Structure formats: structure tokens, C-alpha cells
């Protein structure tokens, strides 16, 4: 009796699970036409990581955000409520000057992390472990 019930339960799940998967895939293929968007490579979306930390503890993970959030907000540009339009030459010049003042240096692996604890976590794992093993 229990065997019947368990086999029935598993069979029901398997049967309808597979039916949902087959019909769902077929429906998506037949009725949902052109459901795709440009991916990262289409727009040359290049990511440059300025900091990587592995295996952080909870306290350091909180500190990490405070130290690495750059907050490059566009404060020199028009307000969010303004209609988008082409900027005049003068406006562009003003914006460029304001940006120069606020911009932080960018580039591969330029880390803003200057705290004493940062050294401890920024070294690759294998180096850290070797150090711990040796001392």
C-alpha cells in the first residue's frame, strides 16, 4: 500500500513535471517570438574590477561596501526631471569642468581601499594561506 502510494506520488510528479517542461518549451518556442535583447558584448560592456576580495567575514563584508562604493553620480548634468535634449557647447564645457573636479582615477585594479585591514584581505588566498602556514 505504501509502495503504491509512494510510486504513485513520484510518478504523478514526474509525469506532470515532464509534461509542463515539454509543453512550456514548445509554447515558448512557438508563441514567444523574438524575446531576446542585446547582450553585454553587443554594447562593448567591459567590466574592470578595481577590487576583489575572497572569503570575507561578516564584519569585513560590511566594511567593504563602505570602502569601495565610489558613488559616481552625475551631479554636474541636468536634473532627472528635465526632458532629454542635446546640450549646448557651453553646457558641455561646464559639465566637463565639473566632472574633472569630481572624477576619481579609473583603470585596471586601481584600488581605493586604503585601510590597514585591506592588506590582509586583498592578497590572493594561496598567498595568505602560505603566510599563515609558515608563521
Amino acid at each position: 500500500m505504501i509502495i503504491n502510494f509512494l510510486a504513485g506520488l513520484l510518478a504523478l510528479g514526474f509525469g506532470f513535471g515532464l509534461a509542463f517542461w515539454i509543453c512550456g518549451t514548445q509554447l515558448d518556442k512557438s508563441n514567444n517570438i523574438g524575446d531576446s535583447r542585446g547582450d553585454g558584448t553587443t554594447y562593448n560592456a567591459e567590466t574592470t574590477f578595481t577590487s576583489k576580495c575572497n572569503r570575507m567575514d561578516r564584519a569585513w563584508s560590511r566594511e567593504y561596501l563602505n570602502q569601495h562604493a565610489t558613488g559616481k553620480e552625475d551631479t554636474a548634468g541636468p536634473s532627472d526631471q528635465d526632458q532629454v535634449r542635446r546640450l549646448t557647447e557651453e553646457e558641455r564645457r561646464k559639465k566637463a569642468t565639473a566632472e574633472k573636479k569630481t572624477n576619481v582615477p579609473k583603470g585596471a585594479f586601481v584600488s581605493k581601499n586604503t585601510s590597514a585591514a585591506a592588506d590582509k584581505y586583498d592578497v590572493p588566498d594561496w598567498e595568505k594561506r602560505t603566510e599563515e602556514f609558515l608563521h
Partner: protein
Amino acid sequence: MATLCKNCSHALVFNPESQLLECSYCGSSFRPEEIESEAKEFRQDLKAESMNEVYGTEIEKFMDCYVYSCSECGGEIIVNGTEASTTCVYCGNPNVVFSRIARQKCPEYVLPFSVTKEQAIELVRGKISKGFFIPKQIKEFSPECVRGIYVPYWIVNATFSNAVIVYGKTGRGKYAEVNHYGRAGDLELKNFPVDASRALSDESSSKLEPFNLSHLKPFDEDYLAGFYSNVSDVTYGDVKNAVFKRAQKYFDEEVQDNVRAEKTKILHSCPSLKLDSDMVYAMMPVWFITLKHKRKHVTILVNGDTGKVVCGIPLDKSRFYPILFGLGILLTAAAFALFYYTFFILAIAPLLTYFLGAGIIVLFSMGIRKIVRAMRSIKLAQDNDMFTFMKKRQG
């Protein structure tokens, strides 16, 4: 308001197949760049008058309506607040609202239509004729309305910066470990198109991507002849939101690839976005094709440059549900027979039962996710806003 033929003064229409402006009356054809309209400057000064002012009324539904007169027949042309080109309802000639695309508001580039109306309909037919769950009436459709519309886009460059904390699992069994990972960095987006029309939803317009930007041509209003077009009406906030969502998605994908752990999940992030000031204003070609099915309008979009078809076609319920439940019952019976006679294997190997259970859950969730995805697209194609965006035009 219309570009006229040098030989017979009849209105010219842009032909996507030949990429030339053609006169249907005398058969002459011209390259859009060749046309020097002497009256252009004068026409730029012609402003559309508010409909309420013309008729001395204060009717709310006319608040966004403006009146022009057709250069061919003198008939009244009514356009809404963002339309830049339309056709005359009386003589059918193309008309461009010059004041809307003049000076500061003028787009810098235009991607001319290269797919003709007939080709667009054929492309749609080709796509839907193969669909297994598409109703027969839709497969044999005759379009209710087909409109070529130049949709305004802002092409932007942006820098997205973020610092994230990722949760991930490494190792298996007794070596399994849960860790937190930190990643910070910048993502540069180049030539990212953002739909600049509020009336068209971002979800629909983003599916039309990618546009081949190497085909962009310096803007000339003659490309608009014979097509409808809108001008930009979005705010910086709208553009920032659209770019932000996509940049965050790309950044998160990159982070999850970069962290060497399983079942990664982003716990916290501090994102920010900066748009470059050199945004480019361009007009992109889209064919809007509507058909009626069971008293509902279905709008199908076709990228006027690449020919990509975007739509969610209503499903044939009389075929889908019987197949779903019939297949479910059939597979259940087959699986029951199999499990009943091999249950002793499951009894001695409980791990196999767990795997089977997990497999069932995965199959269910993947199937349901695909059905939900398709249903969302179907709902979007039947969206009233999109239908109104296309339909609410004179001509």
C-alpha cells in the same frame, strides 16, 4: 511640410527597397541627400497650432492635439504632441512636421527603413506559420493595420560603478563552506540605445535590439516621407533608469562569473551611474502590424532594419491544455508502471529517490517559468498602450 518632386511637384515617398525618394506620379527617384528644399527654412517656422485654440474650445481630450494643413490638398492634419511625421487623411500624402525636428530638437542620425511593408508582413507570416500552438485563424491572418514608425532613441555611453557582496558555496559534503566575496568595479556601456518615447514600453522596445548602428545616416527629414515618426519626450530620469537596469544586469552576470563558487547570490550592492554628455539622438525604424483575434488587438513589431520579429502570439487553448494534461496523464501512467516494478531499487538506494524528487522539482519549475515567460509576452502584445501608440495617428 512634404518634399515635392522636382519634375511634377507631387509628394515624394521614401522606398526602403531602393533607399530612394520616389514619385508615384511621374516615376522619378532621388537620393534623400540630393534634395534641396528651398522652402525648408520657411516651413521650419510654421508652427502647429493647438486644436483648442483653432476651434476656441477647452475640451480636455484635445489638449494634446495640434492642427497643420496639408501642403498638397490643404486638408486639416491633426497630430499629437510628439508626432513628427504623418500622412494626410484626405489625400494620403506624406507630411513632416518641420518645427518638431528643427534646430535643437533635430535628431542627429536616422536609420532608414530597409525592410519594406510587404517584406515585414512576409517575415511575420514566416515566423507564425511554424508555431505549433498558434491558432489557425492567426496563421492565416490579414493585417488590420500596418504602420512604419520611426521611433526616437537616445544612443548613450555610460559608466556604471558598483561594489557588491556575493554569497557563495564552495566544496561538497563535509568540505562544503559558505563564504562572502567582495567585488568592486566599473562597467562601460558604449552605444547603448534607449527608447525615447514614453508611449512605447521599454520592455517592447528593448526586444527590438540589436540595431545595426553602422547603417545610421546623418538625419534628413526626407527619410521620414511616407512614414510616421515621433520625437523624444523622455526625461533624464527615464533614460538613467533604463540604462541603470541593463548595466546592473550585465555587471551582476560578470560578478557571478568571476566568483568561483556555486549557488552565488548578490546580497548587498552600492551602484551608481554616470551618463556621458555626448548622447546621440537617432530615429530607428519599426513596423507595427496589428491583427484582431477574439476581439483583442495583437500588435507585432518588426525591426525595420534587421527584420527581427517581436511578438507574443495568443495560444491555441483548445490544443494546448488537452496536450498538456493528456501528456501528463500518459507520462504519469508510464512512470507509475516503471516505479512500481523497480521500487525495490529506490527502497535500497534512498539517494536515488532524493535525486528523483529534485529532478521533478527542477522540471516543474523550468516548465512553469517558460510558460510564464511566454504568457508575459502574449500579454505585452495585447497591451492597449502599444496599440494606442500605433493606432492613434491620422491616415
